[in-house]
């Protein structure tokens, strides 16, 4: 049940109706049942996995609180982390490790391969679980008494599949001090859902066709212009795909009275890679900062250690995205750029500097080559094509070029005027007119019989 399918909208309407028609004490049960149903629509068997992880982390947090000694507290924390990383490691990284080990000792890559299905959203909900247990261990979060509350935090359907990774304190603040969204929040929620749909279906899926065609067979599109067309198409696809999903998730949660944090802040207008990571997948980058970079020492141990920590954090961040050397290299590439910027003393500038923005965008796009290409060999081949003659041709049709320009204009306008958040405050005819134009775009370009899955669902 993907967010951009009619089945999901029917499901959501039923959930909202039941949620608001029920007495308040029952509402969390409705949300939990709906969330489990949503998860089981993908694969019913794996609900046991999410329930098991929920139980382990719930118990671990309670144990940490009750434990008399530091060693027991640590044991509870380690148990929880081992369970989360164990499940994540097995489902996501087993085949990667097994194939590399096999190759190391001269066995075929698939000698120990298993047919493993990656459980939906496991990377996201394990990170969410771990942050909760670590926060309890650090004394920054009270352990949750009611297991239903905790289960809802882990499985809440708007963010279950691909985030944003919500911190426990924010979620439970909304759950325990729940207040119905006022009219402005409702309007914002609907606007986020509609605009998220436009981002995904009108922009991302259109550019996905171009990117898929290029990455499937780069040799069929000779020339650096064609190579840049394919790579930039993927840059556009992945941003609009993921931020479209996030907007929808935040909007859906808003309509249920939960306020999720911002996850993207126009990352392609960043003036450096450091700035880029302050704007891209914010909930992951702050998670990595708080639970990996800072515990590794952050920038407290001198320049070299800072560079090492940046590199390690980004390498692991890359590996979090997927079990392949390409993701590791992608993470390492960004870690290297972050370290280089720090070494050069490049600070993000508050005002837009077109040259720096362009350079950052180009660097981020080059990184996406590793993210999107199937193999390391394919990545290197595409990188070679990006910088070698002949020129070839742009593969974008004119109207997709216009979509890209329109998107850029809207992003710049948002950067300067914050029109996006202000839309619900505008007169009714403006708000309704904008929604109507979005619906028309969806009608003409968006809705197809075969929905394209969200890119980040595979993580």
């Amino acid at each position, binding site marked *: 049940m993907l967010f951009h399918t009619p089945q999901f909208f029917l499901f959501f309407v039923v959930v909202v109706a039941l949620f608001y028609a029920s007495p308040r004490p029952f509402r969390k049960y409705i949300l939990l049942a709906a969330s489990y149903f949503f998860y089981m629509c993908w694969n019913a068997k794996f609900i046991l996995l999410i329930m098991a992880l929920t139980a382990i982390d719930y118990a671990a947090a309670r144990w940490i609180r009750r434990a008399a000694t530091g060693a027991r507290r640590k044991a509870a924390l380690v148990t929880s982390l081992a369970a989360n990383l164990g499940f994540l490691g097995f489902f996501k990284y087993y085949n990667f490790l097994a194939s590399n080990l096999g190759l190391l000792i001269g066995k075929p890559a698939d000698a120990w391969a298993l047919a493993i299905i990656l459980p939906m959203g496991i990377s996201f909900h394990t990170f969410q679980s771990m942050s909760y247990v670590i926060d309890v261990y650090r004394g920054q979060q009270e352990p949750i008494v009611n297991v239903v509350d905790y289960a809802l935090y882990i499985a809440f359907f708007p963010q279950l599949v691909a985030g944003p990774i919500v911190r426990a304190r924010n979620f439970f603040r909304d759950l325990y001090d729940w207040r119905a969204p006022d*009219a402005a929040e*409702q309007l914002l929620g609907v606007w986020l859902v509609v605009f998220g749909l436009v981002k995904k279906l009108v922009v991302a899926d259109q550019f996905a066709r171009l990117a898929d065609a290029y990455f499937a067979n780069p040799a069929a599109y000779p020339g650096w212009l064609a190579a840049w067309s394919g790579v930039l198409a993927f840059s556009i696809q992945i941003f609009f795909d993921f931020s479209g999903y996030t907007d929808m998730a935040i909007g859906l949660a808003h309509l249920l009275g939960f306020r999720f944090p911002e996850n993207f802040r126009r990352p392609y207008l960043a003036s450096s890679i450091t700035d880029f990571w302050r704007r891209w997948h914010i909930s992951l980058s702050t998670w990595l900062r708080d639970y990996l970079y800072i515990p590794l020492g952050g920038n407290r141990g001198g320049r070299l250690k800072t560079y090492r920590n940046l590199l390690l954090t980004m390498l692991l961040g890359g590996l979090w995205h997927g079990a392949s050397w390409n993701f590791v290299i992608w993470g390492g590439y960004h870690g290297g750029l972050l370290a280089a910027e720090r070494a050069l003393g490049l600070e993000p500038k508050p005002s837009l500097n077109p040259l720096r923005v362009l350079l950052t965008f180009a660097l981020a796009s080059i990184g996406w080559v590793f993210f999107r290409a199937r193999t390391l060999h394919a990545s290197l081949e595409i990188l070679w094509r990006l910088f070698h003659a002949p020129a070839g041709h742009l593969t974008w049709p004119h109207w997709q070029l216009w979509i890209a320009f329109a998107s850029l204009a809207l992003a710049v306008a948002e950067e300067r005027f914050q029109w996006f958040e202000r839309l619900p405050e505008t007169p009714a005819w403006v708000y309704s007119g904008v929604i109507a134009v979005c619906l028309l775009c969806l009608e003409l370009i968006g809705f197809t019989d075969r929905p394209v899955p969200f890119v980040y669902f595979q993580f």
Partner: protein
Amino acid sequence: MTRLQLPLRLGLALVFFLALDSLAFRTGYTSILEPNSTAGYLQQFVWNEIHRPLTGPNQVLAVGDSRVGLKTRVANLLTPETGYTLATIAVPGTTPRCWYYMLREVDPGRDRYAAILVPFDTYNDREFEPVADREMDLRYLAPLLRLSDLWSFSMSYTEWPLRALAARTVLLKGMAFQQDFQAYLAHRHAREENVRLVHRMGAFWIYNSVWERHNLEGIEVDWAANRVRVPDWADAARRREIEEVLLRPVPPITPSYAAYRLRWIGAIVDRYRGTRTRIVFYRLPRGPVARPGLPEDAASSVRQLARRPGAMLIDEHTFDSLERPELFGDAMHLNEAGGIEFSRALAQLVRKWLGPAGIASTVRDERKDVSGRVPTRHARVRAPQEPAR
């Protein structure tokens, strides 16, 4: 802000959206549909017919599908003799449901034609191909459907998913033309040029096309053994198609097919009730070899419809003489020679069925009785010439 803001604004957005959709797609977009698309192809026939200069009141229009072997250029060589001009909007793959909406489009005033020729493959209600829930009709008809068709058109499907799809096609034109619109955006100039060319030349191409020159001479069917011997020139695909069509089991007479015909052919007849236009039912030449021994059904929907005012039922054996292998290019379609022979015969028969040209247009006033009602024309015209079977 009040709590009503959300429903109010969403309602307003929906109104704006429908207005934008209508503005974009109900104000002329259909004239630039891709001519090679399903909808564009049908639209091309409609456009040609609307823009065809009329040479007088004795226009006769043929509706139907690809089996209508009418070559109007051949038929109209006989106009000086018959007094009637024949035209066609017979589009391959269309069904009676499509014919109704096409007629509504080309003849909004119901005063353009002396007669409309409605073909049947059989006068019995044997449904060789299911048509009531045919999704393809949605693609054909998207340009012709109006908001007022929402209920009647959608409910003409029997399955709910198709009804929903039909309702969507009526309501949201943008969605119906989504692929066409995207293709237009991608190649705007080429499309506009192509459309201009088709508007200029389309009628010429339709009316002067040359059909299959092969024929099926030598075909032999052993109905008892359910075997067919196809001429050597036919390739494997043609051979398979001929076998599939000729040897397919005869379906039973179904009430649902009768209901479908009553609904859509009936709608055509009723549309022209009280006008000068006669609706002529005739049976097409069935194929290079006709399956023997199928009983006639005296209570079939076609015969019921023929009793309605304005309808004429032509003897179903009128074109039996054309059911010869040398006149067919495949199991269902007349070849070039067959088309020429059929068109000549049809032109002459139209004269016979309708009477001398010119009378049809003046009959209108004479036909009204003192109460102002129009008597059943088919009975008056047909009775002496075409006894009902």
